[in-house]
Each structure stands twice: as C-alpha cells, then as structure tokens.
C-alpha cells in the first residue's frame, strides 16, 4: 500500500492546495492517522471545519469520499448492508419449477442481491477512500458498537457471504458535536483532534483564501471583530463559516471598512439569536438597527 502522505508538512501543504488551512496539530494528527491507520475523532464547536477536513483530505489525495451521516435511529441496514428483498423475491418467483431450492437459495444470497451501505462500501473499495462518519454522537449506543467492530478490524461479517476484509484501509474521520460522550472504547481506538476557533491570524488567512477580492485590511477587521464577538458570552458564537459569510457579504455590499454602522446592519450574518444581537449591540456600543 502506498503511503498517503510523507510528513506532517506534506499534509499541511496538500490541504492548503485545496483551500483548507490546517494548523500544525491538525496536520500532525492527519499524518499520524494515515500512518498508523487509525480513525480520527474530530470534536469542536459547530462550523469550525470538521466535515470540511475530511473533504479536503479526499480532494488533495484524489481519494473517493464515502459519507455516513448519522442520525437517531440509524441502524445496521442503513449503515452497513442490506439484502435486496424485492429482487430476491422476484428471483424466487422467476425460478424455473424444476430448480431445486438449494440452488435458488445459493443464488439469492450473492453479491447481486447485496445492497452495500456506506460502511461496507468504504471497506470494499480498492481505490483510496476517505470515510466520513458525520455527527457520530447523534446515533444510538448500538450503532457505536457496530462502528467499533468496523473501525478496529476494518472488516465486516455477512453471515451468508463470510467475512469481508478491507483490501485497502480507508482513512476514517469521525466527527462529533459532543451532545453525548462517545464511549471510551470507541475513543480508545481513535486518534483525537479538537478543532477550536482558529487564531485571528489563521482566520485572516482563511478569509483571504476563501473570499476572492477582499481587501487585507477589511479581512483583518472582520476577523478581529469576530474574535471580539467570541469573547462575549453568546448563545452561539460565530463560526468560521459565518466569518467567511460575513466577509462575502461585506465584499458584495462594497464596504471598505467595518465600522459601527456596517457592523450594525450586517450583524444578522454572524449572530442568529435575538438575545445575542442585543448583547453584541450593548457591548460593542453599536447604533440600534434601522
């Protein structure tokens, strides 16, 4: 198997090429995960680029991205595999009368009737694959146990077909918003990465990279203001995605600087709660909204 990356620096460079600016901790963790073949568990506030990280790794390595979006009530049939009942039924009905049952039985439990779901798909792929298990904290504990088996052995047992082992281990990213503590067993098998809000310097780079045509001074002002907003005790602090949105809005409006008036009229782009607006207006001494 060929290596994904040569060094942590190669990771950082590769990710930067596709527009994802990773700090040294992120780059190192991704490098380790690919070298040690461990899944990465990424936690952090909403909108700091957890999902984006998986996409960026896939993009820079030209790997296929397989995504399993978790939700409450997700089960084996949706995560792993399922037999295509309807097709099996058709096959049984269409079987010639003289065919023995054993023959039919062997026929309907073959690849043709197997519906692979994300986990199995990722394991069976021969090409390099990034498997993204998004919002793992939303699932029930049973699915977590299932993940445990898949992520530690990279194999799946289908009773009728036998054990399917990964020919090429995928690079797995598990994201979580920490609405629930994931089990110790799962955490033990993963490398852990906490993505926090970036430093203003890094965020400025991100804005410059993602918002074409923005003035460097304006970018600086935007990230400094967001940093200030984050120090207030808000219900929902502005995320990186919202900072970028804000910068885009300002560019679209043709604003040259971010003064009180512009901030006041565009505050809705970054803050989404009425009480947060009130608090920000008070703390930053903004004029009331028009």
């Amino acid at each position: 198997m060929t290596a994904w990356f040569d060094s942590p620096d190669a990771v950082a460079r590769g990710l930067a090429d596709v527009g994802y600016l990773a700090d040294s901790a992120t780059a190192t963790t991704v490098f380790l995960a690919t070298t040690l073949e461990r899944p990465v568990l990424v936690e952090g506030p909403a909108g700091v680029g957890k999902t984006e990280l998986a996409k960026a790794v896939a993009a820079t390595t030209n790997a296929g991205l397989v995504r399993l979006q978790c939700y409450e009530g997700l089960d084996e049939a949706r995560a792993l595999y399922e037999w295509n009942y309807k097709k099996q039924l058709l096959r049984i009905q269409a079987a010639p009368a003289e065919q023995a049952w054993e023959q039919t039985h062997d026929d309907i439990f073959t690849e043709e009737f197997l519906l692979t779901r994300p986990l199995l798909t990722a394991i069976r792929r021969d090409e390099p694959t990034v498997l993204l298990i998004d919002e793992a904290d939303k699932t029930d504990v049973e699915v977590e146990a299932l993940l445990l088996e898949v992520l530690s052995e990279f194999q799946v047992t289908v009773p009728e077909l036998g054990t399917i082992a990964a020919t090429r281990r995928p690079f797995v990213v598990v994201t979580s918003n920490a609405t629930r503590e994931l089990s110790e067993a799962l955490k033990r098998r993963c490398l852990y990465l906490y993505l926090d809000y970036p430093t203003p310097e890094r965020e400025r780079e991100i804005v410059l990279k993602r918002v074409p045509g923005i003035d460097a001074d304006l970018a600086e002002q935007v990230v400094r203001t967001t940093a200030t907003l984050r120090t207030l005790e808000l219900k929902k602090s502005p995320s990186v995605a919202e900072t970028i949105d804000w910068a885009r809005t300002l560019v679209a409006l043709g604003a040259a600087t971010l003064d009180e008036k512009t901030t006041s009229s565009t505050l809705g782009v970054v803050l989404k709660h009425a009480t947060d607006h009130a608090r920000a207006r008070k703390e930053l001494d903004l004029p009331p909204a028009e």
Partner: protein
Amino acid sequence: MSLFEHHVEFVTALRDAGLTISISEGLDAANAVQAVGLADREQLRAVYAATLVKRQSHRTIFDNVFDLYYPLVYGSAATDRNGGRAAEPVRESPPPWAVNDPLRLQLREELSEYLRTGDEQLAQGIARDAVAGFGALQGFQPGRPSWSRTTVLDRLAPQTLLANLLEQMLGDDRDGIAEQRARTAIDQRLRRFTQLVEADVRRRIAEQTSFRAAARSGVRPGIDRVAFLSATKTELAALRREVQPLARRLAARLAHDHRRGKRGALDMRRTMRNSLSFGGVPVDTAHRPRHPVKTDLVVLCDVSESVSSFAHFTLLLIYALREQFSRVRAFAFVDDIDEVTRFFAPGGDILDSITQLGEQAQVTWLLGRTDYGRAFELFEERYADAIGRRTSLLVLGDARSNYGPLALDTLERLAAKAKHAYWLNPERTAVWDTGDSAASRYADVVPMVECRNLTQLGEFVKSLA
C-alpha cells in the same frame, strides 16, 4: 534517563493528574512518536495530544504536564533574542518600589512590543527573562529560591501598558468598535503571556524538585471537576459557558432515555390489528407510549457571598433545562427571601440575569448574614402555596447559618408537603458539621447531596427530571 523511560514517566504523570490512559493508548503514543520524530516540540505536543487526550476538558492538564516534561529550555539557558544577549542571571526579586530597575523598563518595553505584534517567540523570551529577574523569592535553602508568578506579574504590571498601547495603535481614531477589536487582541496576548509566565514558574519548580511532584501540585483539575467554591474568575466564566452545552447534552440524554424507557399499557386495538398478519395470533404486542411525568420545581437558593457562584450556576442550569420541567420557580435568600423567577425569562441573556438578580432581588434584611431559619419561615409565610403535591423542592446552600436558628420543623413541614425534597451542598462531605455548618441536622429532615462540580451537578439534575 533514557527517552523511553521519560515517555513512560510522562504517561504515568498524566495518569496521576487524572487522565485515563489505557495501555494500548500508551503504545499508540510511542508508535506515533516514532513515526513523527522528536524534531519539533509543538509537533510532539500534537502527537501526544492526539493519542493520549481524548477529552477536551483534559487538555489544560495535559498541556501543563507536557510543558513540565518537555520544556523548551533548561535552567536559564541563553535565548538568542536581542542578538545573542546572554540570559539574565537569576537574582532575587527587587522590591516593588524599584520601578526604575533597568531590567524592568527593558522588559516592559519588549512586552509592549509583543502586545502590539503578537510575536510568540518574543513572548517566550520575555516570560523566561521576567521569571529569572523577578520571580525568585528567598527559599528555605540558600541557593534554591522558590518561585512566584504573582511577583513577576506584580513587578511588570503589564496592565498599565494598555492605555499607552491603545493610544499608539489607534491614534485619534478611537471609535468604539476599533477600540474593542484592539482590546480583544491585547487581552488575548496578555492572557497568553500570563500562561507563559505560569508555565515557566512551574518548570523552574520542577527542575528543583521532581517532575512528578510538580505535576501533582501545579495542575488544576479539568473544568468538569473544578469545585464551584474554589473556582477562579476565568474558571467561573468557563463554567458559565458550559451551561448551554451541558443543558443540551442532558436534555438529549433525558429525551433519549425517556423514549426507550419502560413501555406503557397494552394497546388492545393495535395489538389486534397487528395480529391479523399472523392469522389472529398476537405475536407483536403494541403498547401505548408512556405519558411523560414532568415535575414542578421550586428552588430555594442561598445567594450569600460564600456560595453565590454555586447557586447562580445551578439556577442557570435548571433554567436552561426549563423544557424538562413543567414549571420552575426560584427563590433567593440571605436573611430575607425574594422570588427571582422573573429574572430568568425564556431566551434571556445569562449574564444579564445574574447581574439583575444581584442588583434587584430583595434578599438582605438587617445584617446581610445568612440566616436559614428566618429564610425558611418567611418562605412558609409568603409563598407556602408554591409547594404542591407534584412539586420537587430543591434547597441550594452550604447549611452555614451563622449559629442562628435553624427552623427545622418549618423545613420539615415544607418537605412533607412536596413530592420530593433535596438539599444540594457545594461543600465536601468531610467539612459538613464543622464550624457553624448544620449540615447533618438539616440532612435528617431533607436528604442532602454533595454537589461540588459540573459532573456531580449534571448527574443530580438528570436524576431529577
């Protein structure tokens, strides 16, 4: 000591500090270190963090222990800043009135430069020189000084640089938002500098004693284990920030447990209908969902100086969980009692609620010293109808009534009227009944629970809803 032994000891120190690290994780870490190498210190930190720290609340502990075991420099090694100037020799801290000390003036100059530019390397250099020049205090043994971060920060007084800096950075153009932005930036750098000084002090202590001793003594617990009563100001802010996420987590778990809780009564109609597909045999039984039983909550909290942070915090959590209870009424007391429900309007702002509560609630009477007896009696007199058959009564306080009357029978009557009654005490069980604490006498009337940190509080609230 070989590198390998150092690694093992580092892992042991982390375990001592309260992290759970399994053997396989220790092996992972060793493998990972091999894969990446030891060339870059921040990379090594990332490697250990990724393999050993699986919980963000442990991160501060980890960073502190890491700084001890893998320090940037040993002793007062020469720093290459200022064109290879030799490191400041360690000297005893000059007296506070020596404001014109040349080193002090120079470091303040440099610090001001750092606060303007945010150059991390410069800050590390300043922190090291500052601790060498100002942190040493007369120790027990000659030649082995003890170190203090307070002295360093006192002598340098970085806060006094602020006004000048803002002047320089903004000039005349001091409109509100630009100043706010600059202030945030400087504040963040100042905090970083304080951290660096603390880390350097810890490192010097560790070099004199042993790593493990220093790791044990100098490391504060993770935020979910911080005792409410001994929380620092920053920790209190961090705790408040934890309210919403904690409430969200608890609510999710409660909703989840509720759905999978015991099934309700048999639903005859649906069972019959289900049985049709099995030829009339009731293979699958259908059940009615259980009605959620929501409790009324009446909270009586002691908001006197000694326990106010705990009381406020608990109130906030309960209000954040409003949907889990059918009705919440809160009363605050010191030696007078007032209903404070009005300060916690839905969707209200956390900080505003606390400030308003502090300013407007009528909780003190003559002396302003906690008087549990008077508070309970007044409660019964004025708000007795707040407690009904479905109410859970919650008392928050340390049961320290300044040797005043306890009104045990009043509390007993109130508790008897309610469905449940609990007392949350933010003190350690070991110090109950010491001094003026009447903990066990109240505990005879109302079950008393120790509730010192986030984890315990979370568990309790979960059992309540």
